[in-house]
């Protein structure tokens, strides 16, 4: 059996495909391509290759349904989000998540409601940790 390649992070186009797979749960190459915006105009073979790479990297698994390969994500979106943030924190914020959050909070794009949500999340986390 071919050895799966272990890679932690997805490239831009792979992430785009994973996002569609996470949204639809599972699907063939055609299903994923149909989910992409029409202006992407990606060739079927390119789409098939990207999904095969994702399979090779262990992010999805495939099964045969007649002549079609159906792909299903092996990694949940939340887990990939956590992994991606950990990587961002490690590589860009000197492994200090507080700096990452500070940067996010400083961002002028956050509304009052967003900040309120963040406060609620932090308080809930603190209560869980102390309780």
């Amino acid at each position, binding site marked *: 059996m071919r050895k799966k*390649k272990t*890679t932690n992070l997805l*490239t*831009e*186009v*792979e992430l785009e495909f994973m996002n569609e797979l996470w949204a639809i749960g599972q699907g063939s190459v055609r299903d994923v391509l149909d989910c992409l915006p029409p202006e992407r105009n*990606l*060739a079927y073979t*390119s789409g098939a*290759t*990207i999904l*095969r*790479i994702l399979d*090779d990297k262990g992010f999805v698994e495939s099964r045969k349904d007649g002549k079609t390969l159906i792909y299903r994500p092996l990694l949940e979106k939340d887990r990939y989000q956590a992994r991606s943030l950990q990587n961002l924190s490690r590589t860009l914020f000197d492994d200090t998540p507080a700096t990452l959050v500070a940067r996010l909070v400083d961002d002028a794009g956050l509304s009052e409601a967003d900040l309120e949500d963040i406060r609620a999340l932090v308080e809930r986390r603190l209560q869980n940790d102390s309780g």
Partner: protein
Amino acid sequence: MTAVKPVLDAYLEMNIVLGLSAVIWLVARTVLVRTSLRYGFVAQLRTLKALCICVVFSPLLALGVSALAALAWPDRAVALGDIAVAAYLRGDIGMPATQFEALLNTRERWIDLVLSGQHPLMTITLIALTLVACLLAVRAIRDAVAIRKTVNSSFLWRRSACVDIRLSDRITIPFAVRGLRRRHVVLPSHLLDTPRELRFALAHEFQHIRAGDVEWEIGFELLRPVLFWNPAYLMLKYQFDRLRELACDQSVVARKRINAREYTACLLDYCARTVSMGRPRVLNVALVTGGKAKRVLRQRVIALTDAPQVSAPLPVVFLGLTLTFAALLAVGSASIQQTHDWSHDRLMLSTVVNLERLEARNQGN
């Protein structure tokens, strides 16, 4: 020490032949740019490759010339040293025999000086050169390992009889490389998103593989640790790299009917991506070679946009040039070979030297 001497002697001869080939190439290039082959980069590259092959086979060519000369003109010498001795004995060179003999044995004397280790400056220079050679060898090994890692971690996309096309998310520039058995074209996986660029990159790298450029690159880089100090090597390598890319671009645009302006835009885009990127510099043939190759990139862009279409040169022109190079290098390498035989002329010179010394001693008494 006696085993090292012939090796050092052969090494020096190789460097002299390389210097001679650089001069031959400069002359040939000056002639070529005045002909219709000025923009015939494919023909120029083939001619340079022919010259390099002649350099590799120069020891055999020298043997051939020596044997031929011995058959055709048994009394005539081929080696420059023997010709000079004959001229001296005829009285064409006016200088004391001891001085002439010292001049004749300059190379041997220098080799002895290097091997004796008595001259500190010479020893320091030798150590410095050895250190740089080791560093270059380590760089080549490091790049080979990095390339191997990239190839092993890449995704096998397509496979033909002898070429693998691979996709990698660790690289930004496509390149062609070869292993022991197979050749690989490694493409950045993001190219799947841009079919036009993917087509350019594939056409370019396949053209390199078709022309055997990867093997030539490996050959040149394997020689770098021993020849890096020789300006002739550096000049030939620069010329080779330049012509390789110009010829490849020209072939790609002509063969695949690719729009030259779109292709140029693609090259510039990739060049912008390579600046400040750490990637293996040797043992692979990439689409663009980064900021240090700005001049070559400029020439490539000008050649793609301005150069007229050139028809392939007549095979007879190419054959003529190759035979000229072979003949020049054969005579050149035969003439620089050292004669270790005691020919009649050499015995005569030695006798004259001894008589001169005897006379000097008698005058001293």
